[in-house]
C-alpha cells in the first residue's frame, strides 16, 4: 500500500494544486474555503500566495497569471462568487492560456453563511466545465485533471466543493509534483480585448466548444455508472458528495443502480441509459436542484423523477446519509430519542474582545435616540445581533452596512449608523463610503478595527495601518475621522465621541482599534516557545 497522508478536503485541494504546478493562488478568506490558501502559504513558498482584498481582485489577478501562461488557482466561499462574478463570467469569454481553476466552496445548511446558493449555476450559465469531487482523494487527483482540462479547452474550470468535504479529513495518496509552466503571455489581443466585435467572436467560440465539453464529461473518469442492464424500479444519479451518502445506504443490496456525476455538463448519454434501465430516478445532489431540472428537461415531463423538487429529498439544507437513506426507502433505527435537558449553545464574541466594548458604547448612545438604526456587516461582530447585545438591525452582504445606512439616511432614518470590520471595509466598504461622501450623506460609520480577518481564523487584513489615510483620501473631513481604543475604562470618551459624530450632519468615521484577542493570544503563545 502506498503511503497516505491525512488531509482535510481543503488541504487535499491545496496539495493537488501545488503538485499540479500552480504558480499562484489568489483568495479572500471565507469559510469553508480558507484552509486551501493557508495550506499553500504554509507548504509552497514557490507559489505566490498573499491574501487578496476581495474575490474580484483575486479572480482578476489569477486571470492575469493565466494570460501569462502559468497555472493559477482562485479560492472563495460560495458568496464570494457573487463578488467575483463579473470577472468570472467574462473569463469564459476571453478563455485562458495557462490553466485556471476557480474553487468555490459552498455551504449547504448555512453553517457559517447567509445563504446556500449553489455555485454550479455560475458554471452552467458561464458555459464552463465544472468538477465536483466526492472524496478527499478525488479532490487531490482532480486538480491535475482540472489544469489539463483547462489548458486543453483553453477555458477556466470551476471546481465546486461543499462544507462536508472541505472540512473533513481522510487519507490521501499523493503523486510527484509537476513543474510550473514557463512565462508565455498570450499575444492574440482579439481574445482578450472584449470590444463587442471581439466578444461576439469569442462567445461564438465558447458556444462552439460545448460539444467538446459534453464529450469530455461523457468520457470522464469521474463520471461512473453501475449500469447492469437489469431492469430496476429505482436508479440513482448521485452528484459529488451525495454519492457517499447514497453508497453509505448499500444501494447494491437494494438492487439500485447508481450513476455518479463529478464532471459537468451532465453526461447525457449515461443519464438516458440509466433512464432506460430504471422505472424512476432519484437525483441526489447537495445544494440546489440544478441536475434535477436539467434531467427533467432531458427525459421529458412524463418520466418519474424524484429529488428535491418532488419532496423526496428536503428542498433545502444539506444532504445527509439519513435523508438520502429515507429517499431510498431505508429505515432509520434510532434507539435514543432527543435528550430532555438540552439547550442550544450559540457562539458568542470572545471575552475581552474589542467588539464587545464597541457594542456596549453603541447601545448606550443609541438608547438616547428613538429612531436609531445600526446597520451591521459580515464578520465576528455579526454576533452583536445575539444577546446580550442585540445591537444590530441588519447584516446582508460584505460592505452593505455603509451603503444601507446611506440609503436609510436618504430616506430619513436618523441616526443611521454603520458597523463594519477592518477587513470587510477594504473588501467592499470603501466604494460605498465614497458614495456617502459624494452625496454628503448623514451617516456615522464605525470601522471596528481588530487588525485582522478574525472570523476566518486571523488572516492578514488588507488595510491594516491604512484606515485613517483611506478615509481621508476618500474625502472624510479630518476632524470627523476619530480613533478610539475600545476598553471599558474608555467608555465615557467613546460614547461622547459617538454622540458628537451622530450630531455632525455629514459622513463621520469612528475607528475603535484594538487587536483581536485570538491573534494576540496566539502571538503571546508563539513568543513563549
Amino acid at each position, binding site marked *: 500500500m502506498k503511503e497516505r497522508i491525512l488531509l482535510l478536503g481543503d488541504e487535499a485541494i491545496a496539495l493537488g494544486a501545488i503538485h499540479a504546478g500552480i504558480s499562484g493562488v489568489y483568495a479572500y478568506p471565507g469559510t469553508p474555503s480558507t484552509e486551501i490558501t493557508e495550506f499553500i502559504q504554509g507548504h509552497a513558498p514557490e507559489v505566490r500566495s498573499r491574501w487578496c482584498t476581495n474575490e474580484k481582485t483575486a479572480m482578476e489577478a489569477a486571470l492575469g497569471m493565466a494570460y501569462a501562461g502559468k497555472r493559477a488557482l482562485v479560492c472563495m466561499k460560495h458568496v464570494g462568487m457573487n463578488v467575483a462574478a463579473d470577472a468570472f463570467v467574462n473569463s469564459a469569454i476571453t478563455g485562458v492560456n495557462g490553466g485556471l481553476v476557480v474553487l468555490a466552496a459552498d455551504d449547504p445548511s448555512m453553517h457559517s453563511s447567509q445563504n446556500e446558493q449553489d455555485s454550479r449555476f455560475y458554471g452552467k450559465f458561464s458555459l464552463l466545465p465544472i468538477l465536483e469531487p466526492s472524496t478527499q482523494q478525488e479532490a487531490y487527483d482532480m486538480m491535475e485533471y482540472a489544469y489539463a482540462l483547462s489548458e486543453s479547452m483553453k477555458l477556466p474550470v470551476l471546481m465546486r466543493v461543499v462544507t462536508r468535504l472541505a472540512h*473533513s479529513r481522510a487519507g490521501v495518496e499523493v503523486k510527484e509534483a509537476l513543474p510550473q509552466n514557463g512565462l508565455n503571455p498570450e499575444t492574440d489581443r482579439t481574445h482578450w480585448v472584449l470590444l463587442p466585435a471581439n466578444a461576439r467572436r469569442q462567445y461564438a467560440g465558447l458556444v462552439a466548444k460545448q460539444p467538446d465539453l459534453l464529450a469530455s464529461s461523457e468520457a470522464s473518469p469521474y463520471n461512473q455508472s453501475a449500469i447492469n442492464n437489469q431492469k430496476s424500479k429505482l436508479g440513482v444519479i448521485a452528484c459529488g458528495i451525495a454519492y457517499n451518502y447514497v453508497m453509505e445506504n448499500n444501494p447494491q443490496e437494494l438492487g439500485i443502480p447508481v450513476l455518479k456525476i463529478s464532471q459537468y455538463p451532465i453526461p447525457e448519454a449515461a443519464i438516458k441509459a440509466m433512464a432506460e434501465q430504471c422505472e424512476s430516478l432519484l437525483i441526489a445532489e447537495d445544494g440546489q436542484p440544478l441536475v434535477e431540472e436539467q434531467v427533467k428537461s432531458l427525459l421529458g415531463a412524463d418520466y418519474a423523477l424524484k429529488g428535491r423538487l418532488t419532496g423526496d429529498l428536503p428542498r433545502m439544507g444539506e444532504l445527509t*446519509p439519513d435523508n438520502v437513506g429515507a429517499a431510498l426507502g431505508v429505515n*432509520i433505527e434510532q434507539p*435514543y430519542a432527543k435528550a430532555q*435537558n438540552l439547550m*442550544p449553545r450559540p*457562539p458568542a464574541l470572545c471575552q475581552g474582545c474589542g467588539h464587545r466594548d464597541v457594542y456596549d458604547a453603541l447601545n448606550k448612545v443609541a438608547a438616547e435616540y428613538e429612531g436609531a438604526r445600526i446597520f451591521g456587516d459580515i464578520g465576528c461582530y455579526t*454576533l452583536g445581533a445575539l*444577546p446580550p447585545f442585540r445591537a444590530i438591525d441588519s447584516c446582508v452582504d460584505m460592505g452593505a452596512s455603509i451603503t444601507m445606512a446611506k440609503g436609510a439616511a436618504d430616506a430619513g432614518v436618523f441616526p443611521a449608523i454603520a458597523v463594519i470590520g477592518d477587513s470587510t471595509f477594504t473588501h467592499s466598504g470603501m466604494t460605498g463610503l465614497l458614495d456617502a461622501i459624494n452625496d454628503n450623506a448623514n451617516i456615522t460609520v464605525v470601522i471596528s478595527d481588530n487588525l485582522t480577518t478574525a472570523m476566518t481564523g486571523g488572516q492578514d487584513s488588507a488595510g491594516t495601518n491604512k484606515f485613517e489615510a483611506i478615509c481621508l483620501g476618500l474625502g472624510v473631513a479630518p476632524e470627523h475621522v476619530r480613533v478610539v481604543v475600545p476598553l471599558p475604562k474608555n467608555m465615557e470618551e467613546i460614547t461622547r465621541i459617538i454622540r458628537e459624530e451622530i450630531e455632525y450632519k455629514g459622513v463621520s468615521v469612528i475607528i475603535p482599534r484594538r487587536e483581536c484577542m485570538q491573534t494576540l493570544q496566539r502571538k503571546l503563545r508563539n513568543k513563549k516557545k
Partner: protein
Amino acid sequence: MKKDIILAGVGGQGILTIATIIGDAATHAGLNLKQAEVHGMSQRGGDVQSNLRLSTDLIYSDLIKQGAADLIISMEPMEALRYLPYLNQEGWVVTSSHPFKNIPNYPEEEALMQELNSLPQVAALPIEDVAKENNLPKSANVVLLGMAAKYIEILTPEQLRESIARVFASKGEKIVEANQLAFDLGLNAVK
C-alpha cells in the same frame, strides 16, 4: 470492523486534539478514516462536534448516520446528550461530568446528570479535577481520551499512547510525558 465516534464539546476545549491523536493512530495502523469537523464559529464558545469514522473497510459517508454511532466522547455533559439520537443501542457515552455554563439557560444540573446516568452504558468523570489534581491542567482532554480508550477497540490503548508521543513530539519530552500520564489516568479510572 468499524467504529463510528462522535466527539463533542465547547469551542476551545480541545476535541480536535483528541481527533488528531485518534486519527494519527488510525493512519499508522493502516485503517481507513474519515473525520468531519466544524470550523468557522468554533472558537467562539459555541457547541462543536466532529464525526470520526474508523474502519478496516472502505468508508463512504463523512457523516455518521443517526442511530449508528458506537461511541460519544464529550468534554461536557450536556454536549454528550446533544448527540444521543446518533447513538446505537449498544453505544457508549464517555464524558466529562463537569458542566461548562456559558449560556444563561443551562439546564438544571441534577436533572441533566440524572438523564446522563440513566443511559445503559455511560462513563462520566470530573476530568478537569483529575487533570488539576495531577498538575496536568491543560490535559483534561487527554484524560478523557484515556477513559474512552478501552471502548475504541479498533485501536489498542498502546497504539493511542504511541500516537500521543508523535502528536506532541514537537512540543518536547515533558509535554509528551504529561499527556501520556493524563492518558493513563483516564485509562485506569474506568477499569
